[in-house]
């Protein structure tokens, strides 16, 4: 599928969203509330069919959190980025997409573990690597009083 064609399709499917060109594809920017409906359209629409969630990861921008998704369509060979902004920096939360892509269940557990973003309706939101009660190390304001050795 050509890039212009994909751009047209995205504009048609997501009116009111910010869609900007990024590398050889596009990036959709949306708010936390729009995640699940957007993901459903991306996965279910026969003209898009983004069935492979390559990666998702969280970013702490100090005033807000963001989650970046990277999709690929195995039918059309197209890729797409999406960036979700979570305005609430105190208690960040967003809807899960683990019912749509199975890999998201574990990627979301990792984001929760290291970044402290909670996912609504997640079937098994436990910490993945660290112990309960540990802080969230990938946040920018994270300090570890016990294990850091000052030079």
């Amino acid at each position, binding site marked *: 599928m050509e890039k212009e064609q994909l751009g047209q399709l995205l504009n048609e499917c997501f009116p009111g969203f910010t869609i900007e060109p990024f590398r050889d594809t596009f990036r959709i920017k949306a708010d936390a509330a729009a995640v699940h409906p957007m993901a459903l359209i991306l996965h279910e629409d026969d003209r898009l069919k983004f069935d*492979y969630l390559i990666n998702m990861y969280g*970013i702490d921008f100090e005033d807000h959190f963001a989650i*970046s998704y*990277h999709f690929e369509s*195995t039918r059309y060979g197209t890729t797409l980025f999406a960036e979700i902004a979570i305005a609430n920096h105190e208690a960040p939360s967003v809807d899960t997409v683990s019912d749509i892509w*199975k890999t998201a269940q574990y990627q979301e557990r*990792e984001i929760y573990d290291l970044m402290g973003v909670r996912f609504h309706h997640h079937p098994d939101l436990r910490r993945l690597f660290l112990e*309960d009660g540990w802080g969230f190390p*990938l946040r920018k304001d994270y300090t570890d009083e016990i294990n850091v050795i000052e030079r």
Partner: protein
Amino acid sequence: MQEAELQDIVTSREDGEYIINIGPQHPSTHGVMRFVTSLKGEMIDSVVPETGYIHRGIEKMCERLTYQQVIHLTDRMDYLSAHMNNEAVALLVENALQVEVPDHVKYIRTILCELQRIASHQLWWCAFGMDMGAQTCYFYGLRDREYILDIFEESFGSRLIHSVICPGGLMNDIHPNFQKRTKDFIKYFRKKLPEYDQLLTGNIIFENRTKGVGVLSREDAISYGFTGPCGRGSGFSCDVRKKYPYSAYDKVDFKEILYTEGDSWARYKVRMDEMWESMKIIEQLIDNIPEGPFTAKMKPIIKLPEGEHFQRVETAKGELGVYVISKGDKNPYRIHFRTPCFSNLFPISQLCAGNKIADLIAISGSLDLVIPDIDR
């Protein structure tokens, strides 16, 4: 898992169901990794992988390092695909700065990656055989892997984690003997690889333990992000070398191995066939390495332009993605590694359900897991 949660699982079990911990120090987990396995008699009900025993916080560490220093942490993730991990970060930096590396470097990178792929598959093959009780495999595999490690050692001084591919090119050029020794190895290994088949592939016990065991359909493979030889065993065409060629992969002719059965046997066959393909790639390149410098001109301090950057490469285990958020500084604001073993691990509960406890070892062996790659 917390003690209380474990207690919950233990007390909430049904009649005749019981829990076994496999790991964290069990030899067949190939590292520190625990499978909380719930059994009914001999049959597996579910497997819950417990990760984090060697979580080192590589992503957090990288935020304080420069891009040249990040290279050295990447080969500690999947130490059997060290060259490919290095190359992912190197390519990301080069693409972001729009640096064109010399053809000399591209050819050598491709050869190194393919040698590394063969070495990784050899170690997987011998460990897989040993998991299933075929002790001889271990000696055959390690004997032949030694030749590749010697080639690396002669050129770069290290055998396992090289950190030789860096932004802009290579740390140092190849040894004058490199081409001759690589060709000698290919000649040698073309004779030895059929021995692997004679030893294990046709073995009736081996076939019975892998055929039809641990089946994952193509749809599930895509949904789980099951990439690399595992995904291609399920018929998911996911070879980044074919889809988005980098380095010299667009100049060589090779096949993407695809099997559609989706069982342990298919994953085994994909890797065995990939070793032949890797040798084909090396043979096409080894005599044609162009002359030239071993590094492009790079500034001593690398600052990436502001924004998001990403790079995908194909390691021996699957698709590795590096994602960088840069704020224009000399170190990344946020770096994330999408590692192949992380995604390849979690289908294990679905793969094992309904199989016998002994099959867990065969299935987890067929996934070719490297635990530091999962935990990072």
